[in-house]
Structures are given as C-alpha cells and as structure tokens.
C-alpha cells in the first residue's frame, strides 16, 4: 500500500477506532453478564449438590456437581466437591482424574492429597495412601479447615494401625494430642489408642493430664485406671476405676474391669504393702484358682504328681512364715505353665490368673 493512499484513509481509521471501542464495550458488557450468569447457575447447581450429598445421595450429588463445574470450570471448590462425592459414590477413577487436575492447578491444596489418599486406601494401595495422607496433613491448612486436617490425621492413624506401622501411628497420635481442642473426648480417644498400641508411658502422660484438666470426666479416670493396670499397679487401678464409676455409674466398661481388678488383687500375692497372712491367703486363692482351672485337664503321671502336691499344699496348715506362701506361688506357676501341654481340648485362659502371674513375674 502506498503512503499517499494511507494518508487518505484517515477517515477509515477513525471509523474503525469508533467501531472497535463500541465492539469492546458491547463484548465486555455481554461477557460480564455471561460470566455472572454462568457463576450464578454454577452456584445453584452446587447448592443442590450439597443438599443431595447431605442426604447421602452421592451419585445424584455428583451429577449436580458436574453441572456446577460445567458452568464454572475453573472453580476448584466445585471440582474438589465433585471428586469427594465421586469417592463416596465409589467412582474412584473419575475422582482421581479430577484430583490430579486440581493438584496441577493448586499443588498446595492439602484436601486434594487427602482425597487421593482416600482413593488409594480404597484401592488397597496402602503405601501410596499413607504418603498422600502425609502430604495432605503436613501441608498448610487455613484455620477454618483445621478440623478437616484432624479428621485426615485420624484417617492416617487408622491406616497406619491397620497396616501395623505402630511407631508411626504413635507419632501421629502424639501430634493429634498436642493439637487437640480443649475438650476431653478426642484426647481420651488418643490415650486409649496409645494404650492399645502399647505406648503405656505416653498414655500415662495423656491420662494424667486429662484427670488433672477434667477431673469430672469418667472416661479419663478409666484411662488412668487402665494405665495403672498396664503398669501392674492394681490397687491404683482399682481406685481409678472406682472413681470412674462414682462419676458415671452407668460406665459398664469400668464396672466389668473393676471386677477383674478386684479378682486379680484377691489372687496377687506379690503386690506390695500387704501382711504375710494376707500374702498366704492370696497365694492360697491363686493356687486354688489354678487347680480349679486345670481340673478338667489330664496330663501324665508327672502332672498328676504336681496336682497332688498342690492339693497337699492347700491342705497344709500355715505356720506363720512365708515359705508356704512361696511354695504355693511356685506350685501355681508350674502348674499354669503346663496348661497348654496337659489340656487337650480348650486351653484355659483366665485373665485374672494371667495378670496375677505377670505381676509375680515382674517381682
């Protein structure tokens, strides 16, 4: 094009500029209204989906989430909710696909990794699930979402326990305890799981603090009692169980455990601070209980001889010394150790005797 021609086309330039401004204005107005409408339609479908999900209809909720996402494809919350509903509906591949896309868009959103972990856990990919849960719970969570983080950590703990990764579970439980809200129930749950995992010292720390912070909480006292019981301090356990029962008379767990503890104390001669007479009485009770438990068992001549010895010890008159008590304990222990070889049918498993024997052994 020649410049002379160009100079003559200034009117066209002005005209095009005016048309351009008008078109931009029109398009701007139209696209704003269009985006508003899309967002509004998306929000409507999202609200419907949330309602459906609350009613437990995850499949229909997912359909509504999809519609919401169609209108607002860049809305991460919609996509995440869709993925969560899909997990609930068991459509794991589709959920995984949405989560993977979210992970690309928002790589620091911890809820994405928790979702991925849930999928991996459902598919029995335990190591992947644990890694994803870890990535999720160790990411930054906004303050409003802290309860979700705790829920995710609980899921991680359960997974670690089920996959027998005890020490890692204990570590996560201690983190849960240190960040637990100021109410007893979750802390008690941590304490009981620690006890279950054999972390008695950690559980002791938890329950000691709990009974100090919430002295009117029956479960805290029960936990304290179970810790004492695990340490072999049956008397302290009995006191704590009694306290728990006073606070909550309907606590059947404490009631049944108190019965066991009372029975253990009745047959535990090794407990400290008891008189020699009391020790002899408990030794007699222990031997009698063992003989009763083994009464249905038929061993060889040696076993019969030992039973006869035990019965002879029971018949012996006490002479005011500890020798008889010690002999009874030894006889009870020897007889109890033979139970698996002499009892052909069901092997006796008396929890009371076991606990008393364990206490004796620790002495």
């Amino acid at each position: 094009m020649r410049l002379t021609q160009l100079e003559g086309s200034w009117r066209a330039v002005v005209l095009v500029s005016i048309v351009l401004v008008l078109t931009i204005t029109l398009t701007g107005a139209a696209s704003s209204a269009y985006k508003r409408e899309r967002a509004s339609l998306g929000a409507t479908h999202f609200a419907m989906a949330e309602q459906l999900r609350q009613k437990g209809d995850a499949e229909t909720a997912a359909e509504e989430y999809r519609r919401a996402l169609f209108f607002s494809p860049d809305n991460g919350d919609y996509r995440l909710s869709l993925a969560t509903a899909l997990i609930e509906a068991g459509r794991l591949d589709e959920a995984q696909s949405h989560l993977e896309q979210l992970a690309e868009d928002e790589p620091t959103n911890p809820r994405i990794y928790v979702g991925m972990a849930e999928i991996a856990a459902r598919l029995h990919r335990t190591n992947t699930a644990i890694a994803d849960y870890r990535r999720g719970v160790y990411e930054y969570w906004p303050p409003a979402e802290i309860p979700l983080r705790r829920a995710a950590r609980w899921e991680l703990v359960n997974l670690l326990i089920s996959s027998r990764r005890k020490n890692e579970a204990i570590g996560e439980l201690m983190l849960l305890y240190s960040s637990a809200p100021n109410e007893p129930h979750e802390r008690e749950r941590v304490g009981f799981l620690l006890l279950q995992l054999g972390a008695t010292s950690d559980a002791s720390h938890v329950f000691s603090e709990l009974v100090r912070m919430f002295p009117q909480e029956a479960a805290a006292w029960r936990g304290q009692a179970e810790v004492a019981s695990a340490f072999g301090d049956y008397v302290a356990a009995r006191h704590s169980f009694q306290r728990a029962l006073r606070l909550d008379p309907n606590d059947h767990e404490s009631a049944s455990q108190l019965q066991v503890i009372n029975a253990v104390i009745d047959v535990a001669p090794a407990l400290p601070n008891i008189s020699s007479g009391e020790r002899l009485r408990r030794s007699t009770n222990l031997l009698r209980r063992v003989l009763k438990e083994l009464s249905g068992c038929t061993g060889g001549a040696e076993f019969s001889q030992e039973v006869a010895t035990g019965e002879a010890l029971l018949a012996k008159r006490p002479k005011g010394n500890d020798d008889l008590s010690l002999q009874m304990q030894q006889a009870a222990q020897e007889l109890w150790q033979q139970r698996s070889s002499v009892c052909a049918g069901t092997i006796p498993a008396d929890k009371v005797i076991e606990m008393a024997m364990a206490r004796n052994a620790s002495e």
Partner: protein
Amino acid sequence: MSNTSRRERRQQLWRDLQSRFARVRLTDTQWFLLLSLLIGIFSGLLVVLFHISIDLVSWMSLGALSGRYHFVRLLTPALGAVGAVYVVRKLFPLARGSGVNQTKVAIYESDGYIATSTIAGKFLACAVSIGTGNSLGPEDPSLQMGAGIASRLGRLFALPRGNMRMIAPVGAAAGIAAAFDTPITGVLFVMEEVLADWSATAVGSIVLAAVSAVVTTRAFLGNDPLFAIPSFELTSASELLIYAVIGIAGGALSALFMSLVEAAKRRIENIPHWRHYVLPGVCGFFTGVVGLWFPEVMGAGYDALNSALHGQFTWQFLLYLGVAKLIVTLLCFSAETPGGMFAPALFIGGMLGGGLGGLAHHVWPRGAAPAESYMLVGMGAFFAGMFRAPMTSIFMIFELSASYVIILPVMVANTAAYLVSRHLHATPFFKMLAQLEGVNLPTAEEKRTFQPLRVENAMQAVEPGTVLEPGMKLYPDEPLDAALRLLSLQSHVQVTSRVHPDQVIGDLTLEDVHRAYGITEPAFAKSRS
C-alpha cells in the same frame, strides 16, 4: 456565539487529528502488521460474542425445560436447523457452505473478497443451529467470520489486490485460533489447509493476528482451556502399539465418514427443492431422538469430551457415543445445516480413541493406561485422517494438552491415520466438498505431489571445463518458468553451480524446456497454429 466557537473548536480538533495522522509514516509492512493486529482483535471479539450467543441459545432452548419435557429436546434441534437454513437461504445467501472452502474461494477467485453479510449470516445461522443441539461445531464458521472481518477491513483501507489476497488468510487464522483457543493451531491450519503453502509471505501477519485473537478471547472469556486435560504419561514403549492401532482405526473411520458424507450429498442432490428445509428439520429431529438417550452428542459436544477426559464414562459407552455422534453429524452435515466439522471430528476421534484405549486397558491392564489417556490421541488421529493436515493435528493436540510426552504417541497415531485415510479415500474432506460443489481448489497434498519443475529437471549436462559464455545464467534449483523468460532473450542459457559460479554444469534450450513439460513438437506446432 458559544455555539459558533464550539463548532470552530471541533473543526480545529478535527484538523489537528487529520494533520497528526498525515504525519504518521508507516511502511507497507508495518501497516500490514498493524492491520493484522486489528483483525486479530476484531476476530477475537466476534468469536467471544459467537461463543456467548451459542451458549445463550442453548440455555434458552435446551435448558431446564428439555430435562422436564422430552418433546422439547426432540423438537429443538429440528426447529433450530430449519431456522438456521432459513437464515442462510433467504436472509444471507452468501453465508452458505463450508467456511474453509468459501475462504479459499475468496482467496483464489475473488481477490480475498468476502461480503460483510457473510459474517452476520454465519454468526446468526450457526449460533442457532449449534445452540439448539445440532451436531456441528463453531470453528469453521469462526474461521470464515475472521476472514470476513479481514476482508471488510482490507476494503475499508482500500488495500491493493495483492494485499487483499493476503489479508483473508490472516483473518481466517485469527478466527480459528480464537475458536480453538490455540494460536499455533490457527496459524498451522491456515498455512496447511487454507493457503496450502508453507512459503506464504504473510506468515508474520498470520501469527500476529492469531495471537492477538487468542489474547482478546482470553481477556473476555478467561484463561480456561477448551479441554481440562488430566496429566498424560506414556506408561511403556509397547503402548505405542495401541496408539498405532488407534491411528489406523481413526484413519479408517475418517475415510468411512468421508465416503458416507460424499454418498449422502450425492443422493441428496437428486432430491427436489423442498429438501432444503425438510431435510435439516428431519435430521434435527433425529438428532433430538438420539439426544434422548445420548444427550452428550448434541451441539459441539465439548462438555461431554471434558467429562470423558475425566473418566466419567466406561469404554463401551465411549464407543456408543462415538458411533451416535458419527451418525447424527453425518445427517446434520449432509442436510446442509449450517455449522462446522472440527468439533464433531474431535468428538468422534476422542470417543474412538478412548473406547479402544479402554478396551486395551481392559484386556491388558498393566500395559495400557486408562481410557482417557487415549482420547486426545484419538482426536488427533481422526482429525489428521479427515482433514489431511498432519502438522495441524499434531500441534493442536500438543497445544490442547500442554504435554511434551504426548508428541510421540500423537505422531505415531496421526501418521498412521493419515496414510490409512489417504489410501482408503484419496480426496481430503474440504477438497471433496469443493468437488461436490463443482469447484476445484488447491490443497497442500496436491502441492506436495505436484512440485513445480526446476532448471535441473530440463538442463543437459555439459563436459567439465566448458567455457563460461557471456550472457545471463541460471542456477539448477531455479524454477523452469524463469528459464522460459531468459530463453525469449537468448537461444540457450548456461547453468552454473551456486558454490562455484564460474563452473558451467549444464545447458538449457527451449527444446529442453518443452521436453521437460512434456510438450511434443507436433503438439506445440499445432497449438501455435
């Protein structure tokens, strides 16, 4: 008094503006680039409005009501098709036909002239037909609307004939790039299919227009890509076999589709005049019937593709969707309902790829990825087989997925699809449509096949050491046409080496040129007489 002074001030301002503009000195190239930028912006804006209009029509016609009353879904595509055909037959007759071919006709036949009414006609007709659920896409109309805008601006600025021819492809690239939201694809498609020439002089302008169109579209519609693509990975090298199979299947299916379109169009030509409205209505109704069971096939189908890419459907359902879409697209397109073929091609290819990939995963779970990984490759394969634009198809999938890993599978599948489709159906899609309309347009494939003759094809080799004579010389790689011009001035022309210009390597006479062109002496004499 005040009125007079105000008028004088306005006139003064106008004169200032005029003189300032007159002082602006732009070279032709700068001016052309500036115009390309404008074309890109206008095309982007128009595509935004087009996109909004399609959605608006869709919400109004296929919104909540169609879910509640089935007859709405049955009748809407039929009514939309009839309405759209009315628009292009009665109101804007120049807007009829394929956008790509109409643009090519404008470039090769009418110096880039595209009537402004074509833009309005395409916009209105396609917004109605696609929005009401007819199985067609918005990209081909966008391409023609972009070319139309370019042509309008070119005429407004009174561009010379040569520039007018160059400006239409610039607009076409802007239109298709904005529609796909992929600038590279826009550029490549125009170079490969519309211009059918890789050595186009307007490449810079085409790129600039495509980029500015995409930027404009994104500024108004956001940065969301056309497809939300999940991460793609190649699980094993043996997976390439599955991609090759998808390519072969895509090529075969695209050839079958083209044969069916060709057969349908030939049969429809024999039906009397009433067909123009009745056929689109009937095909729209059939689309509605299919839409009762497979609502995903209605309209462009991008939402369904997005859902499928996220694993919403089983591989069997993907195959059903692909077949259903193929049938309704065949009907809608053959009935001449306004709309493009790109979106349906991507849909059919995607579903085919996903279905076959899903089947492979079902049979061979460890060696094959889930179905959605194969969808993108399927899209590219069907696109390559149908439009015979291999570079465009490869880069389109690369741009859509933003994944380097996908390049290799796409190349394998697209090459297979291209070769199979070419073997089964020799004519590419747009060429076939043009031939059905009695128009002969060039294609890149033809240009690759029929390369222009060069001097080296005609020259006679000479003895080494031949003396260089005075006069004009030629190089062996120059076009033979150049030799003809020189041979009108001298009896023979010596051909020299480019590396050693003093070394004569050949000699060329008019007879050699005739021989190379295959013109025998009697025939030449006869034609002269």
